[in-house]
């Protein structure tokens, strides 16, 4: 059924304002079938607005949106059987059991009893919730509620799942478990579009759209984005980060210098050229340092570079 490479979501020139606020300001991107696609940006970047437009629950001011072959602006209802939308606060019924919640959502989507039992059994096993089936949703931990919400959202076997900040407030261990689950779903040919404000997590996606103030900064695979950043990142570990910054921030070739807890991160034009220069600058001072090395840019580095117009065009 799945056709790798073919796009399941195509967004062109999307705009949506609320009063004088341009929540989404001319956004275009494609999501390929079978991938985990991250809409990445801080709170207020427009991620939720995009999600809601894709789900057909909010209309765009202009632009086109095609999801699973449906023109969402024209036929917002027809898209709903192909997709699932899991908003930040998914409505679970706390006084219903796991099984009852699943049955409720299956009914809502018109899922047959046979399909419900088959899909629920598979997803309950996958999430490790099988033995809690009769437990009330209100008695589940945060991580378990998240998993139940995901099962409810998947009960009609959608081709595309829209997840709006599924890991906000979720601790790193549960987050790891959730991602494991998402990769399992991906292996079953489900396409996942995930909005997140958590930049470190973005590296787990196959493809990223970095969004800032309703606009696209860049869209690419995380490893390609890293190669597109103008400049390279160095990390100096020192007991005295503030002095280190005072010494090095204005040195030749240093574009950016950020204090971190146990040192500084520097963006330089050319690591190979600047490292020996910076090292000899430090040796002229009393500054002690335990490590000085080139590190891979973080998504935060890419985001800052993108907002400053320092992400180069696609490689090749």
């Amino acid at each position: 059924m799945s056709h790798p490479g073919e796009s399941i979501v195509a967004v062109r020139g999307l705009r949506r304002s609320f009063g004088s606020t341009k929540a989404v300001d001319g956004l275009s991107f494609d999501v390929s079938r079978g991938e985990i696609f991250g809409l990445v940006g801080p709170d207020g970047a427009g991620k939720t607005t995009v999600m809601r437009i894709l789900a057909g629950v909010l209309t765009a001011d202009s632009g086109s949106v095609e999801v699973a072959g449906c023109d969402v602006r024209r036929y917002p209802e027809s898209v709903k059987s192909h997709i699932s939308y899991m908003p930040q606060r998914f409505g679970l019924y706390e006084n219903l059991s796991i099984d009852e919640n699943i049955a409720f959502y299956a009914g809502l989507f018109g899922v047959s009893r046979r399909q419900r039992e088959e899909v629920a059994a598979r997803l309950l096993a996958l999430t490790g919730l099988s033995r809690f089936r009769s437990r009330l949703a209100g008695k589940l931990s945060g991580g378990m509620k998240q998993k139940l919400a995901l099962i409810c959202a998947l009960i009609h076997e959608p081709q595309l799942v829209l997840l709006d900040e599924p890991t906000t407030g979720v601790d790193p261990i549960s987050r790891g478990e959730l991602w494991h689950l998402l990769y399992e779903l991906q292996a079953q040919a489900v396409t996942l579009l995930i909005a997140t404000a958590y930049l470190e997590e973005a590296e787990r996606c196959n493809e990223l759209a970095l969004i800032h103030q309703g606009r696209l900064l860049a869209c690419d695979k995380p490893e390609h984005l890293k190669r597109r950043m103008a400049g390279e990142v160095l990390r100096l570990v020192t007991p005295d980060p503030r002095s280190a910054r005072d010494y090095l921030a204005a040195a030749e070739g240093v574009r950016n210098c950020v204090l971190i807890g146990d040192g500084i991160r520097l963006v330089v034009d050319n690591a190979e050229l600047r490292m020996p220069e910076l090292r000899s600058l430090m040796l002229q001072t009393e500054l002690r340092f335990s490590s000085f090395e080139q590190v891979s840019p973080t998504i935060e580095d890419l985001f800052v570079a993108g907002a400053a117009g320092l992400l180069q065009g696609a490689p090749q």
Partner: protein
Amino acid sequence: MTPGNGEDAGAIRVEGLTKRFRSFTAVDNVTLLVRRGEVLGLLGPNGAGKSTLIRMLCGIMRPTAGCVHVAGINVVEHAEAVRQHLGYVSQKFSLYDDLTAAENLRLFGGLYGLGGQALVARVQWALAISGLDGKGDVLTRDLGGGLRRRLALGCAMLHRPPILILDEPTSGIDPMLRRQFWELIHQFAAEGVTALVSTHYLDEADYCNRLALMSAGRLVALGTPHELRYAAARGDLVRVECDAPVRAAEMLKAVPGVHDVAIFGNALHVSITNMEPEAALRASLEARGIACMSIEAIEPSLEDVFAQRLGSDSREEPAD
């Protein structure tokens, strides 16, 4: 210890601290010294005991055993006295949306017992550090996420507390504003303020001088981010770019010498010991017909460290 010599003994001194709720031990014999001017990150999954520890530091909850000194005050004996010395910034800080920035500051200043010229001066100061100079009349609800967090920080610092407690202070904010926020925290720290940061966000952890990892009520690791990244690795960590990552991950878990495999987008992070990764991993993958594009050693991220240190702990899931 008597009040007054807190500087030498550390701004926050926790010894053998324990809190039990019936049969459940939320905090289990924790000993921790936070230096004056230090930014300490407190990390751990839900239920690890972070919130309980912080409540005991603030004098809101009495420990079952052990002692806590904050800014030289014995918190167990003088729970009320410690509050004047604390500032608190939460992710959901209770700023009043329908008040202006200046009104919020005056309100919180009043609650901390400031008045007259002293209050006027501190409100001016707080507006300046919040980046709201001359914008005191803006309604709080009209401020963006980054400015709200800085205003919350301004509110918390109005009464010049020597100790600042921050709960996920910069989650979800614009990266540029996040850097400015941490710049401020480090500036306060340089002036002698001690900050305790509780967070789930490992990219916030990088801004802390030292990190304390908690699990099941215990302190399981303590060190600078750099120390933790290097010391934690039970073996080496390699990044493997290959086809079919989900299938490849399952398969590599069974390879001798492989501790753990996590999928990261288009690649795998494989933690290994005592093996030649290039040859062994490539051979295993290719034997199953999975093409392997590259294998390279990488530095563990704090997320990798966290998973390694805590991932194997079995735990029930109580709400924190």
